[in-house]
């Protein structure tokens, strides 16, 4: 027997025009939680897909318990006890939760091949309950929130009784409380003998869970260390190739006059009684458990999902916002939480994406003006430090963090007063994260009013001037930066709404 349950040597994977993995080595010990870290686009997800047989490597070997293996498709990997939770939720929105959990390894009756529904439903329910979730296994996957879907994905990995479980950024969509839940589950799995590969851009995750960390950078293997062997600074240098001194940069500008006043905003079935104000140059953090309705409130302000109660006063004028176009005209911009589905046209170039929301401004009486378009795109892309060759690179070829920067650049084309950022650093690496923080701060000091939805506690506390906490569709507390602590926020977001004491 080998010392390692899983060992990869010299893995190289090329996509047309991209070398996503370049001679990467990796060793996983039994019963170990092994963190895999690196910048956006470093090749982590690709590496995972090589392990699970989704991609065949161009070069390199893979050993499972010392035995050489080659997977031609994901079924092979599954049969050998490897399960993965992929970065982009790979669910079947039209199918039930149970089916999502058991897809690919359904319980079937021998001989007849009949699917044993009852058994599967029961089992699914059991696994979900063990994860502390009350999701009905018979409900449709598409009806669940992102966080709930993430739980189902975890349940799916558990249900295969896999020996090696790989999690690609499972906490990206979770709040710290839910992450905590996930940590426990992960540790449980380890204690039951599974080996786990864990990918995350959050250092807290790594420090909390992992005993070993491997870093990839620019498709290459940089090194592997025991968690105590390497300092935080060195790890960051290993990941991004340079030092990042302060994660949350200092802010210069000051808070100005009142920009926005929201009074008693409500939408039947989604949120109610939402009131807050926003000033020039202010960053208002909006936090709460996932599913609290933060996105819905902000989308209402942006005209995506028109509110049916309450009023919005913008620059002292009462307005009614019915469509995104109108919101943009009124000076409100929105960075969607799902950049791939809502934010960007992936098949398009960087330039085109940036100009999309400002076409009428860039155009001349409806005609496109290429020169102006390209010039603006270039300027903005550089302003937010997009890492690419030219503005004609396809967005789909960018890493997650750079995609996010393009989405931010899009916002800057319009003349806005208010910018709403929905989870702006979700799934973004440390380097890009601090770049995005810098951009946000710069915007605030330029006088934009900013609403930032975030589930990451340090981020909310580090960035916001005030923090609004939502729970079950209502704002339960608004805290000033001075008094905002993790404990205060957590308490507010979990107290029952009946005994709420509005802030």
């Amino acid at each position, binding site marked *: 027997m080998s010392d390692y349950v899983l060992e990869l040597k010299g893995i190289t994977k090329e996509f047309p025009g991209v070398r996503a993995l370049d001679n990467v080595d990796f060793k996983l010990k039994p019963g170990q939680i092994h963190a895999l870290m690196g910048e956006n686009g470093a090749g982590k997800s690709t590496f995972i*897909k090589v392990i*699970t*047989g*989704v991609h065949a490597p161009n070069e390199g070997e893979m050993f499972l318990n010392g035995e050489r293996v080659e997977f031609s*498709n*994901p*079924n*092979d*990997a*599954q049969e050998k006890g490897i399960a993965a939770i*992929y970065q982009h939720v*790979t*669910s*079947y*929105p*039209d*199918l039930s939760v149970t*089916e999502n959990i058991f*897809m*690919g390894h*359904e319980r*079937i009756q021998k001989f007849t*091949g*009949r*699917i044993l*529904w009852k058994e599967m439903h029961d089992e699914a329910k059991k696994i979900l*309950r063990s994860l*502390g*979730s*009350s999701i*009905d296994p*018979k*409900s449709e996957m598409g009806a669940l929130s992102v966080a709930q879907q993430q*739980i189902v994905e975890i349940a799916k990995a558990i249900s295969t009784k896999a020996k090696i479980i790989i999690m690609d950024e499972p906490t990206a969509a979770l709040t710290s409380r*839910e992450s905590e*839940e996930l940590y426990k589950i992960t540790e449980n799995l380890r204690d039951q003998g599974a080996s786990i590969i864990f990918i995350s851009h959050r250092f807290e995750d790594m420090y909390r869970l992992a005993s070993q960390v491997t870093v990839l950078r620019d498709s290459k293997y940089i090194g592997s260390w025991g968690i105590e062997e390497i300092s935080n600074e060195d790890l960051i240098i290993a990941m991004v190739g340079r030092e990042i001194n302060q994660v949350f940069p200092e802010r210069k500008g000051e808070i100005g006059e009142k920009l926005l006043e929201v009074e008693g905003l409500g939408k*039947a*079935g*989604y*949120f*109610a009684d939402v009131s807050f104000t926003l000033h020039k140059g202010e960053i208002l953090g909006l936090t709460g458990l996932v599913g609290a*309705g933060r996105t819905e409130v902000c989308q209402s302000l942006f005209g995506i999902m028109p509110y049916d109660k309450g009023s919005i006063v913008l620059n002292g004028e009462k307005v009614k916002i019915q469509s995104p176009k109108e919101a943009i005209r009124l000076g409100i911009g929105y960075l969607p939480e799902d950049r791939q589905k809502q934010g960007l046209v992936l098949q398009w170039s960087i330039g085109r994406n940036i100009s999309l929301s400002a076409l009428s401004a860039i155009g001349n009486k409806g005609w496109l003006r290429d020169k102006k378009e390209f010039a603006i795109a270039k300027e903005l892309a550089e302003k937010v430090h997009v890492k690419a060759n030219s503005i004609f690179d396809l967005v789909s070829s960018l890493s997650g963090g750079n995609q996010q920067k393009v989405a931010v650049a899009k916002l800057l084309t319009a003349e806005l007063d208010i910018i709403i950022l929905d989870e702006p650093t979700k799934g973004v690496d440390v380097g890009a994260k601090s770049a995005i923080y810098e951009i946000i701060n710069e915007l605030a000091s330029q006088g934009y009013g900013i609403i930032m939805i975030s589930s990451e506690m340090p981020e909310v506390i580090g960035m916001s001037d005030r923090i609004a906490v939502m729970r*079950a*569709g*209502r704002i339960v507390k608004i805290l000033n930066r001075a008094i905002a602590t993790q404990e205060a926020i957590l308490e507010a977001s979990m107290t029952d709404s009946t005994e709420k004491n509005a802030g």
Partner: protein
Amino acid sequence: MAETAVESSNELQQEKKASKLAAISKFRELGLLAFIILLCIVVQIKNPSFMTLGNLTDMITNTAILSILALGMMLVLITRGIDLSIGATLALSGMLVAQTVSVYSGLHPLLAILMGIGIGTVCGVTIGFLVSKIGILPIIATLAMMNIFRGMTYTISDGQWISSYQMSESFVSIATSSILGINTLVFIAIIIYIIAFYFINHTRTGRQIYAVGSNPESAKVSGINQTKILVIVYSIMGGLAGLSGVLWVSKFASAQGDTASGFELTVIAACILGGVSIAGGSGKISGVILGAVLLGIMNNALPLMNVSPFWQSAIQGAIILFAVIVNALVKRGVDRNNLLRRKI
């Protein structure tokens, strides 16, 4: 997420209530069903002979072929595909089988049926191959194959029809005989529906069809063989179209080159009326039955109601439009109700 311990009993009750509600709202074709009932009442008032056993039998018999095809089309639509070639496949299989029967009059009806299924399956496999292996979009592949199959039918028939006198008694009786007191066509449709119900809901392959349509990307990651699934789906569609060809020719006792030309649109209409989504991933047998039944009722009732033939098409179009809109509105109402129930 983890309040389970605290409010478990309370939650349990709520859960039960919620799942009951969900079950009702899950029956998406509620609006369609209501509409059909309403339509039946109107027709019955206009012409009392509508709800007679004889007429209902006719209606069901006439809808059998449509419903068989709609089932196959549902599977195709679920995988995000579409099959425009089925009318032509039906004609080709019908013509070949009829020609065979006219030469070998002793051919056992069962063999004729098998032959039809075989021909249709070959057509379907071809399309499945084009769609899954070569990666041609289904609408284009099937549009092209529609032309090809139709052209082949004209060519092999050389412009001739196969008439009822050239068909053996036993062949024609496929459509007229009955099994267990049920007309054979209807019987075959029922059997197919039962098999399909089992296949779709209780086998892995059946569920994988939904998976491929619901999210092709994930299907790849789950190790589902998409090529296999697509080929299976188009083969089933082809096989059913081939079968329908035999049944059609037997029912009308005549095979023509232009048999069932344009029928694919009727079949697609039945599916979509029944709530099958063109975007893939969803569609239920119950819905497809309702969709086929609604079209069947219209075909049967419009002549009965003494509607001017010049008005028939306009009324038919209006009814389809109205039906889908009513269905959409009812669905919206149910969803809204559910939303309002959520306490905030």
